[in-house]
C-alpha cells in the first residue's frame, strides 16, 4: 500500500456506515431539471410547456463548444419552463416534467454498439452528446476534460477510486459493483486520448472495489492501492502514484476520471445512453437507512432522503456533497443535479460545531495541510493586517480543501480567513 506522506487526515469513521451496493430509487412522478448543470454556456430550452418528451430526449442545448446537451430524465409532459430554487438557495432556469408515457430504456435489454472502429473524434462526440459532467466535485463537461491535452503531450488515464472525503463513496460502490463497465469506460477514454497507459488508484478503505477491479482488470491497467487518508486523490498525488513528475514537467498529462464518469462514458458509447441518472451516497446520523442509491437527475433532495427511510431525528444540517467541500442544503425540495455525489443529514454530534476561540497552537492545521503551508500563521497575518507577508507565507498555494478548519479545535474559520488573505494579497480588498 502506498503511503501518503504530506499532510492529510485519517477521516473519522462514519457514525452509521452506508450499506454496500446500490439500488434504483423509485422514479419520481415529477422532475425539475435545472438548465445550468455544468461549467460553460447557459443552455436554452428546446421544449415548451405541454410538450410530450421521451426518456433521454434532448430538452436543452447550446451551440457553444464547451456546453453539453441536457436530457429528459423521465418520459412525460413538460409542465413548466421557468426558474427553480437550487439547493444552495440560488435560482436557475429549469424545466418541470410530469411523469407520463412509456420508458424507452428502463427495464429494456439494449444491444451494445461496436466502438472499436470509431475514431477518437467520433467517440468524443458521443461523450459530448450524452451530456456527461465529471464528478463528484467538478462542473467540467467530460468531453472538454478529455479534449484538454495540448499538442505534443502524451496522456495517462487514471481511475480515481481514492475519493476519501467522508460520504463521497458512490464512486467506489460503482467500481465494486460494475468493475467491467468502469474498465471499459477507461479503455474508451484511453482510445480518445490515444494512449495505452491506464492506472487505477484505490484507497485502502475500499477493499471491495479493489478486489472487484483486480479480478476484472486486464494486464494493461496498473493497479495501485493507497492508504486511507484524506485527501488521497489530488492531481499531485495521482501523478506521483502513476509515476509522473508533479507539475506536468515531464510532458505527460494525467487525465483523472471517477468511476461514475468512466461508467457513464461506457454507457454513452456502447448504449448511446445520456447521463440522466446517477449513484449518490445518502448518509449521516439522521438518516434511517444510509445507503447508495441510483436516482434520476431532477429528483428532489426530500425524495432522496425518503427513499432511504427518511430522517430519524432533526438534522443539524443537510449537505449536498462531502462534509468538507459540499454545499449546505437550504432548500430540501431542490432537485439533484449532475454534480451532487452525496446527500448527508448530519446530527449535531457529527457536526461538532463550536464558537470561535483563540488559537491554542496545537499545530493540527499544519499537520493536516496537504500543500505544506501554515494556516495558523496565515490567520494571524490576516488578523494583524500584514498583507505584504501573505504571499510569502504561501496564501496562494492554498487549495481551500478545508482540512485546516476541519481539524481546528478552536473552530477558527481558517478557509474564510485565507480567502480574505488571498483577496488582500491580490489587491482585491
Amino acid at each position, binding site marked *: 500500500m502506498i503511503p501518503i506522506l504530506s499532510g492529510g*487526515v485519517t*477521516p*473519522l469513521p462514519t457514525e452509521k456506515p452506508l450499506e454496500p451496493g446500490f439500488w434504483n430509487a423509485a422514479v419520481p412522478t415529477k422532475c425539475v431539471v435545472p438548465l445550468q448543470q455544468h461549467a460553460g454556456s447557459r443552455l436554452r430550452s428546446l421544449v415548451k410547456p405541454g410538450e410530450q418528451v421521451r426518456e433521454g430526449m434532448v430538452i436543452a442545448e447550446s451551440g457553444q463548444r464547451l456546453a453539453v446537451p441536457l436530457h429528459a430524465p423521465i418520459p412525460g409532459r413538460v409542465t413548466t419552463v421557468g426558474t427553480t430554487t437550487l439547493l444552495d*438557495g440560488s435560482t436557475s432556469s429549469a424545466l418541470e416534467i410530469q411523469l407520463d408515457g412509456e420508458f424507452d430504456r428502463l427495464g429494456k435489454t439494449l444491444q451494445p454498439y461496436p466502438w472499436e472502429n470509431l475514431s477518437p473524434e467520433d467517440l468524443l462526440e458521443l461523450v459530448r452528446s450524452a451530456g456527461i459532467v465529471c464528478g463528484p466535485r467538478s462542473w467540467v463537461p467530460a468531453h472538454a476534460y478529455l479534449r484538454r491535452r495540448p499538442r505534443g503531450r502524451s496522456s495517462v488515464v487514471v481511475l480515481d477510486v481514492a475519493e476519501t472525503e*467522508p460520504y463521497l463513496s458512490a464512486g467506489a460502490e460503482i467500481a465494486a459493483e460494475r468493475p467491467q463497465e468502469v474498465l471499459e469506460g477507461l479503455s474508451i477514454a484511453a482510445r480518445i486520448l490515444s494512449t495505452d497507459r491506464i492506472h487505477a488508484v484505490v484507497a485502502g478503505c475500499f477493499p471491495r472495489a479493489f478486489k472487484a477491479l483486480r479480478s476484472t482488470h486486464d494486464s494493461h491497467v496498473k493497479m495501485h492501492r493507497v492508504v486511507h487518508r484524506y485527501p488521497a486523490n489530488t492531481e499531485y498525488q495521482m501523478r506521483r502514484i502513476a509515476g509522473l513528475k508533479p507539475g506536468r514537467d515531464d510532458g505527460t498529462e494525467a487525465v483523472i476520471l471517477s468511476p461514475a464518469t468512466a461508467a457513464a462514458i461506457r454507457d454513452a458509447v456502447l448504449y448511446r445512453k445520456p447521463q440522466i441518472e446517477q449513484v449518490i451516497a445518502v448518509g449521516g446520523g439522521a438518516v434511517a437507512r444510509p445507503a447508495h442509491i441510483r436516482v434520476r437527475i431532477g429528483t428532489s433532495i426530500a425524495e432522496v432522503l425518503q427513499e432511504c427511510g427518511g430522517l430519524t431525528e432533526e438534522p443539524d*444540517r443537510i*449537505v449536498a456533497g462531502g*462534509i*468538507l*467541500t*459540499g454545499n*449546505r442544503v*437550504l432548500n430540501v425540495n431542490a432537485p439533484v443535479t449532475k454534480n451532487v455525489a452525496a446527500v448527508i443529514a*448530519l446530527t449535531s454530534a*457529527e*457536526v*461538532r*460545531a*463550536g464558537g470561535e*476561540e*483563540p*488559537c*491554542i*497552537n*496545537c*499545530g*493540527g492545521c*499544519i*499537520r493536516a495541510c496537504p*500543500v*505544506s*503551508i*501554515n494556516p495558523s500563521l496565515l490567520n494571524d497575518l490576516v488578523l494583524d493586517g500584514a498583507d505584504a507577508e501573505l504571499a510569502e507565507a*504561501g496564501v496562494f*498555494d492554498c487549495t*481551500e480543501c*478545508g482540512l485546516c*478548519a*476541519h*481539524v*481546528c*479545535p*478552536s*473552530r477558527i*474559520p481558517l*478557509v*474564510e480567513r485565507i480567502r480574505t488573505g488571498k483577496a488582500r494579497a491580490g489587491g482585491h480588498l
Partner: protein
Amino acid sequence: MSSVADFRLPHGFRMLTVRGIYLRLSLATAVLLVVALFRSGTPVMVTALAAIGGGILAELVVGLTGDISVRRSGIGNGRVLYYGLLITALAPLGISAPAAAAATATAVLIGLWLPGGPGAYWLHPALVGLVFVPGLSVTPGESVGGTGGIAAVVESSQIYRVLDQYVFDPLSLSITPEWIAALSGMGTGEPASAAAGLLLPLLVAAMIIVGEDVVPWILPVMYIVAFAVTVTLFGGEPLTAAITGNAPIVAVLAVADPGVRPAHRGSIVVFGVLAGILTAVFTVYGGTDLPAVAGLVVAGAFRPLLDHLWSYRWRRER
C-alpha cells in the same frame, strides 16, 4: 434567510473543541486519581480540591483584569480543572492543601497567562506550577500514605481471584498476583506521587485521550521508548523506574496538552525522544524530586527551536 455561517466550510469537524479536549484530559486524569484515592485515602481528594480551587481563584483574578470571555475560557473550557487534577497526580503525597492551591494558581498566572494565554505558552503550565512553588517536595518519611493502601491491596487480591477463576485459568494464562499488583500500583512501596505506579488506570487514561485524538500516539510512545532505552543504557531498571516515578503520567497526560508540543510531525517525534531522555537522565542522576516534571519542562524550552527548524524545512520543501 441564511446567515454567513451557513456557507462556512467545513460542515463537520474532525477534532474535539478546546473544551472537549480539556474535559477529556480532565476525565483521563480523574480516572487515575480515583484509583489513587483508594490507594492513598482522603489526602488525595483534599489536594485535588485545593488545587482546583486555587486555579479557579487565579482565573477569576485574571478575569478581573480582562474581559468576561477570558474568565470563561479558562474555567469553562476545563483547563483549570485539568491543571488542578494533573498537579494532584504529579505532586508528592505529603504536600499541603495551600501548597497545592498555590501550585495551580502559579500554573494559571505564570504558566498560562504570563506568556500570553492559550496558544502563547510552550512550557506546560501545570508543570511550571509544580516547579516554581516552594515547599512541594517532602521527604519520604513525611509522606501521607493514607489508610487505603492495605485495603486496596486486599481488594486487588479479590479481583485477582475472580479474574484467575474466570479468565486466566480458562485461557491458561500464568499471571501471578504480584504481577497484577505491580501493574495496578497497589503493591508498590512508597510512590513518588499520588498517582505514581498506577499503570493499569493510566492505560485506561491513555485509551481515552489517544482514542479521542487528543494527542498523536507517536508522542507518548517515543517518550516511553526513549525513557526506557536511556534508563537501560545507564544501568537502571526501566520497569521499576516507570512504576516508582512519574514518567508514564507525564508521557500520557502532560504531553497531551495541545499547547506544549511542537506542531510538525517530525518535531513531535524529536520532542518525545528529547523529553524521554531528559526524564531518564534526571531519574538516574537525581538533582530534583520531580525528574519527569523537570524533564518535560526542560524539553519544552526546546520547542520553539524544533518548530523553527521544521518550519524552515517545510518552507524549503514547498
